[in-house]
């Protein structure tokens, strides 16, 4: 079991309260991809959100990612003409808290599953 994450910052607490399922899933998927040393870009993110039934438009997917970037929960790096997403230490803290709160259910990434098979 991971060690307990204590939140002392009220701002972070308020930010977490405003995150939706889409944000949560993006944080989890980009974490898993990074763990597997797989690049995870906005297009992969859109496909996964679509597959999970969260959204059907790329604009929404982009806005989820941009929000997470604005909150410093993810970094977006231009790599070989792709905008790849990486979780930040703040994002990691936020994700760990969300996971423990059981507010949302984790879902697998279709992109990562396809790569596995």
């Amino acid at each position: 079991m991971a060690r307990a994450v204590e939140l002392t910052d009220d701002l972070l607490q308020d930010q977490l309260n405003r995150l939706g399922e889409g944000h949560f899933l993006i944080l989890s998927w980009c974490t898993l991809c990074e763990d597997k040393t797989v690049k995870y870009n906005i297009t992969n993110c859109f496909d996964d959100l679509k597959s999970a039934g969260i959204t059907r438009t790329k604009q929404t997917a982009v806005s989820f990612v941009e929000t997470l970037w604005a909150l410093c929960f993810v970094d977006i790096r231009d790599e070989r003409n792709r905008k790849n997403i990486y979780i930040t230490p703040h994002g990691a803290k936020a994700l760990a808290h969300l996971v423990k709160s059981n507010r949302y259910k984790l879902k697998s990434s279709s992109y990562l599953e396809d790569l596995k098979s």
Partner: protein
Amino acid sequence: MKVIGIGGAGGKIAAKMDSQNAILVNVSETELEKVVGGGEHIVAPVQSTAGQFRGSRKDPTIGHDAYNTIRRRMQDIIGGAIVFSSTGGGTGNGITTGILEDIIAHDDALESSNGIPINEKTMFCLVLPDDELESNYVENSIDFMSKPLATAIDKGSTGNIMLFSNKLKFEDQIGEDAYNQMIADSLNVFMSIPDKNTSFKLMELHIDHEDFMAYTAKPYFNHFCYFDYDPGKDFGSQLTANWNKLLLPPEEPIEAMFLLEVPAGQDHTIFYKILPFFEKKKVNPIYSVVENPSLQRPFITVSLLYSRKPLELIDEFNKVNQEVKDVKVSKSLDQHVVLEKLNVDMNKEAKRASKEKGLDADELLQALKRIKKL
């Protein structure tokens, strides 16, 4: 008169008719041994190792094939005999078909000398299945009546044919043995007409053995019945009320015979009240009146010969057969279950299962630690 019983049902009735001398024919010795009474046993071997013990299994072709092995023996004994057989099973139907075919061929061969002589004509007592409760036997009966029996009637090669029905057996819930005894007893009443003419005091006319033989040699269906005759009532309505329930009801009579037995000392001229009934039907009956001292009331035995084509009977059987088939088809359609073939792609199923299962929270937290973000 020689009594021959073909198959299971025919054999049992024949043994009731003549418990000492009835000739019993079957495809299986085991089946023959089940019959109580009777005389000679004729086994028609079936060309199968199991056949001698298994009977015809309701398949008339087995009975018909088996007949070929005893054909010569049957040709020797069939003339002048009375044959009992059922039409619904395999042995009775199959062997009787063979017998009828041979009788027709024999009659054709003797055409130049007026066909089979009267004393050589064969009477048939056929047991028909109950059309509703024995529908599984109806199909064989339809084949039998539409082919060999119809041809025999058209050619006029046989003697009287009596169509017994199993209907009463089911309606009154009578055991097989008791029902067979009823058929034998009933037939004995009719067959005793010439003997009664010999043994009782003749009051009016005479039906001797020769007259009776000539009558039973006619190729018609015979419906006979008997009842206490009340001269004060209309004969026609008494007759209709007393149809023999063991037999199929008759059609319009072509020929008729009756024997009136009156108690000793009673007016025997009551028979004149019967004659107008037949006059209306344009039938001249053969009849006689005897005095039977053991009777309290007048007793009459009537026989009507009619030529209702079996095809009309077949229509009724066909109707029932069709109804049963329709119900069977409808039931099987109702119970038809489509089994869908599932093309399972194990990879896709595994993905779906893992997607449904979701991810483990601990696994995610461990990942965060591994990438050193937490």
